[in-house]
């Protein structure tokens, strides 16, 4: 029955591609979280009237974030080919997609981190300072816990954007469902492969959204 409806779908290949997409999304989301968070915190602390207020660092970080956030992802991948080659000695495979995925997504997430941190009540930071807290204590015990719901919902949005990025990365040879849909589906006119790949990508997106929303709600004690 399924064979008749989807004559060209090789389920083993489909499963492999799904795992590759999941792998790329998970790795990229994890590293984007760390790098984006660090950039976002740096932006926040160096912005005017904050603990490390510093015009030069704030401007440089802001410029870096804005530039990489603005380059269309498909162009960013191409621009980063020499960098990836230098870093990993190859431009093929799931790992080769990671530098571009992270450099594309981390600035995007950094902006969301900045927005999340700005939402924190200034009084709470002042209270922590009045208790004699060090800046590191303020970061770990005030900034991060107090902005956690916004950090998580931002991460959900970023992870979903990354699923889309992995599909684009797939087109230039990174593997995954995007690669399968494009090479096996589109270029060989096998619509069933394209459709099944799309459905799987949608499923991944829905699951990420659902899990992200659930964790965000649980983290919010306001």
């Amino acid at each position, binding site marked *: 029955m399924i064979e008749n409806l989807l004559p060209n779908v090789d389920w083993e290949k489909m499963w492999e591609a799904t795992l590759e997409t999941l792998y790329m999304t998970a790795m990229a989301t994890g590293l984007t979280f760390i790098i984006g968070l660090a950039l976002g915190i740096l932006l926040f602390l160096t912005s005017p009237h904050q603990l490390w207020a510093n015009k030069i660092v704030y401007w440089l970080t802001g410029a870096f974030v804005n530039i990489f956030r603005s380059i269309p992802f498909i162009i960013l991948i191409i621009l980063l080919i020499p960098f990836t080659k230098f870093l990993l000695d190859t431009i093929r495979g799931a790992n080769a997609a990671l530098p571009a995925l992270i450099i594309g997504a981390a600035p995007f997430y950094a902006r969301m981190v900045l927005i999340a941190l700005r939402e924190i009540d200034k*009084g709470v930071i002042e209270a922590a300072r009045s*208790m004699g807290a060090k800046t590191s204590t303020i970061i770990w*015990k005030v900034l991060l816990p107090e902005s956690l719901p916004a950090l998580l919902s931002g991460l959900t949005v970023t992870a979903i954007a990354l699923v889309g990025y992995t599909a684009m990365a797939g087109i230039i040879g990174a593997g995954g469902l995007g690669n399968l849909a494009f090479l096996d589906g589109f270029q060989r006119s096998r619509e069933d492969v394209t459709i099944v790949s799309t459905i799987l990508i949608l499923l991944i997106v829905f699951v990420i959204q659902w899990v992200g929303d659930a964790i965000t709600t649980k983290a919010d004690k306001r």
Partner: protein
Amino acid sequence: MIQLQNLSKRFDTANGQLIAVDNVNVTVDTGEIFGIIGYSGAGKSTLIRLLNGLEKPTAGSVTVNGQEISSSSGQALRSARQKVSMIFQHFNLLWSRTVEENISFPLEIAGISKTKRAERVKELIELVGLTGREKAYPSQLSGGQKQRVGIARALANNPEVLLCDEATSALDPETTDAILELLVDINKRLGLTIVLITHEMHVIRKICHRVAVMEAGKVVEMGSVLQIFQTPEQPITKRFVAQVNGPESASQTIAHLVEQYPTGKLVKLVFVGDRTEQPILSRLIKQYQVEVNIVQGNIAQTQNGAYGTLYLQIDGDSIAIDQAIDYLHGQEVQTEVISND
């Protein structure tokens, strides 16, 4: 305990320089509850933030318990802050932490071990009357309860000074009274020096020993609360005193009273401190053949005693009235005859 010398703070704003605190000299004694009152924009918020180094002065110095806060920085300033804690108008609790975790926060900052933290948190929760609410999040508490958490948190590291930044301004009158009572209780029990800023004169009346009145960055009047209430000198001080006493409405009714009580004499008595406790009135009635009619009055309690105003109509034989008024003049009660027949 606290010495402010020639203290000034200027801010550079888009519209030029703003002088928030202008050459302030204040000394606060150990164990005292010292109030600073002013309208918003008077510079009192900036002043209180200079006391724990949240703001750095442009000129002058702040010394708390022998340490010059205004020139401290880094670790020295952070340790000093553990002894000069602060509570806030909007409580500033961490919503992500429960009541006990919020109270534990300053102890974590001070590097206290986990078991000792738990012990201390338990003590503090009892002290501020929050037993049973340990696991609640701030969002589940009322305003008064939130401020109790704020107070417990501020007391965690056994501070020497407690700074109150409009601590009751976001609370309803009843809760305000309860929090003020808690502050007085803490002041007496722990011998804590309290500096509070407010725009509400009844807060000053209820709990402060001394008060400074601020206007446009300057301290325009300072003295014991009784003295300020009895003889306010500056127009702004008079306005603040009127918040509690309402003399303007009273003076309107005085004209009324004169009409209403055409016979005898209308006398205004001002009681301050100890005098309030003495039975002046009953002696007056016993010793002189006069009718005494209480027309209007109010007596209020402050931390250094009571003060109040009483309007009497004294009627009867004119010689007896004069004698009665002489008696009152002899009693060290401020006496003023308002109307004559």
